[in-house]
């Protein structure tokens, strides 16, 4: 049935809840575990949500200049590949699995980790590095991706993200 509305039907873009905030804690350094946080951060920013990412422990590999472009995916300990676990331990298997995953990611137009971080920053996202992880790994701001705003303590991050919804990955 066709109805004619007296007032125009317009998407409710004006009603964006500008107070919404999202905090994402990235604690893993495997290629497959880097993407969920990046994809969700990107999506949140595209919806006008203020977004902060905190990189901690193994998640530091995502912002460490030496490792960020070289994250790996392994079948070992990952039953979701539905392959015999022993296969994953064979020489070269991690390199092969990583190569395959990178190819699949590229095929759907999703960028590699460094470029994805840049896109997030260009979209207004904030990147923070964990003080304890930096101290443990003897890393300083110069060792980290340039767009990381600062190395901050866990308490600082909690303060910055007051009122935010939180994701731990």
């Amino acid at each position: 049935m066709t109805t004619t509305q007296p007032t125009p039907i317009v998407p409710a873009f004006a009603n964006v809840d500008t107070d919404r905030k999202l905090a994402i804690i990235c604690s893993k350094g495997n290629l497959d575990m880097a993407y969920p946080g990046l994809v969700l951060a990107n999506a949140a920013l595209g919806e006008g949500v203020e977004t902060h990412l905190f990189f901690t422990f193994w998640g530091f590999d995502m912002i460490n200049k030496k490792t960020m472009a070289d994250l790996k995916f392994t079948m070992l300990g990952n039953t979701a590949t539905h392959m015999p676990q022993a296969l994953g331990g064979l020489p070269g298997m991690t390199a092969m699995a990583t190569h395959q995953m990178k190819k699949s990611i590229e095929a759907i137009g999703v960028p590699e980790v460094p470029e994805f971080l840049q896109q997030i920053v260009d979209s207004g996202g904030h990147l923070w590095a964990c003080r304890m992880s930096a101290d443990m790994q003897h890393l300083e701001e110069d060792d980290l991706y340039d767009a990381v705003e600062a190395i901050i303590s866990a308490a600082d991050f909690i303060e910055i993200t007051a009122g935010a919804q939180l994701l731990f990955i």
Partner: protein
Amino acid sequence: MPTTTIDGHTIEVDDEGFLLDPHEWTESLATCLAAQIGIDLTDEHWKAIRFLRDDFAEQGETATLRRVSVVGGIPTKSLFQLFPQKPAKKLAYVAGLPKPHGCV
């Protein structure tokens, strides 16, 4: 499906207000749609809108922001300035296309 009238243009839209038939779109309609969401179209806006229209005609689906920046050559930062807060959806709306389905 509902029809709605915006500045004298009567169009068929979905429940949210997105144009149902991309062929009903005209440049003058785009100006009216943009005004509805508080955007005054400049040449920069038009560059993005034309890319989205052309890309949709070729690909059959609305480009994601990433595609607009990588293939369309319009930097992500500019897209957020031109169509604040929800650039992908606002751009699709003004271009008379469905919301993008891709995640990135």
